[in-house]
């Protein structure tokens, strides 16, 4: 699938590169996100209770569960947007949320909303031409985003994630509204990101082509 979509060969280099240590001829990657016994309130309700997870560089974690089981809440918590009631989020063993701006700088966020401004053009959202090619939007670079379809907006939001160059992708239902070709392109983007040492945590109801991904049922 990747071979038939040469455009997907593109991925932005991760700026804050994972530290590689040569050890016994093997590459041991040290970037690691851990969540320990996470509990989160939404209003009065305890949505998440004692959830633990770990993602290493190059790894992927798929969150599954029925509507309202807290997939989005967990993603927002890992991003540091929703506060923890109990538990700890660690990045390479150190508390990640102690310094929120530097934790935020590790994250490429794709929420359930696309964060697309109708009056700005596609290129003004994502200046990186390579990322636009990777989601097949390069022909629309000069077009104001209000003329894009729902699926194209989703692709634009995905291009922004791909162009961010950040190591941790947090994706909330990334394939909503995407056609089969775009889903394949997205899978290729994810593979490239993981090959470069990036991590992906995504919630989804659909089957995603993320080889070797761990599944966390909520």
């Amino acid at each position, binding site marked *: 699938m990747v071979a038939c979509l040469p455009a997907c060969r593109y991925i932005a280099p991760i700026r804050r590169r994972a530290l590689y240590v040569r050890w016994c001829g093997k590459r041991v990657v040290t970037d690691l996100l851990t969540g320990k016994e996470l509990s989160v309130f939404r209003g009065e309700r305890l949505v998440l209770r004692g959830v633990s997870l770990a993602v290493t560089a190059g790894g992927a974690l798929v969150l599954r569960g029925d509507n309202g089981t807290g997939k989005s809440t967990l993603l*927002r918590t890992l*991003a*540091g*947007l*929703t*506060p923890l009631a109990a538990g700890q989020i660690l990045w390479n063993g150190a508390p990640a949320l102690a310094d*929120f*701006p*530097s934790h*935020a*700088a590790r*994250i490429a*966020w794709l*929420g*359930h*909303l*696309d*964060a*697309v*401004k109708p*009056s*700005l053009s596609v290129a*003004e959202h994502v200046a990186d031409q390579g990322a636009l090619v990777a989601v097949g939007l390069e022909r629309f670079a000069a077009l104001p985003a209000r003329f894009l379809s729902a699926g194209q907006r989703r692709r634009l939001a995905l291009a922004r994630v791909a162009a961010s160059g950040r190591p941790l992708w947090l994706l909330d239902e990334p394939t909503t509204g995407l056609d089969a070709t775009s889903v394949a392109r997205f899978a290729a983007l994810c593979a490239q990101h993981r090959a470069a040492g990036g991590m992906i945590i995504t919630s989804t109801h659909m089957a995603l082509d993320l080889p070797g991904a761990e599944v966390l049922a909520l």
Partner: protein
Amino acid sequence: MKRLIARELRLALRQGADTAAALVFFIICGTMFAFGVGPDPALLAALAPGVVWVAALLAALLPLEKLFGADFEDGTLDLLLLSGLPAYLVALAKACAHWLTTGLPLLLMAAPLAVMLRLPSHALPLLLAGLVPGTLIFSLIGTLAAALTLGARRAGVLMALITLPLMIPALIFGANAVTAPHPLGAFAFLGAILCLAVPLAPLAAGAALRVAVE
């Protein structure tokens, strides 16, 4: 942060009607007073500083609802807070953008409006000099109110109810600077209010933004 301000300015330029609406409202609001109190030059001149100030404050309220509201609704606010900037710098950038797109144009339009209201020419520089910190203070406090009311029902009304009372001190000193025999004291107070608002308002607004996106 510069990129964020530049983006806000570009958005304001694309949606020029929103920006122009505040200006037109400012002029109409000022003109209504002239129609209401009659054409007596002495009376108009006495009212002019207060009228220009109040009209400017009311006009600057108009774009506040969209300041964070639009970003909150389309998910951009999450991205702004995850951009790696601290929340208070996001708020400060928004306040700068609000001043550049609303405060500064209002300042430019205040001179013709004041002249129309028969403000004596020697008082005009004083009025404008007072409006510079006045509009800056308004942008900062307005940003705070916009962040606080984010996600609330009837946010627009709440915003006015929070912002306008907080602007009373600035209004008193600003309008007083034009008519007082020694305007320096009033300017010192305006400066002091601005010095308080510059660090405190973005801090509080940033905290309010973090609460709003929970």
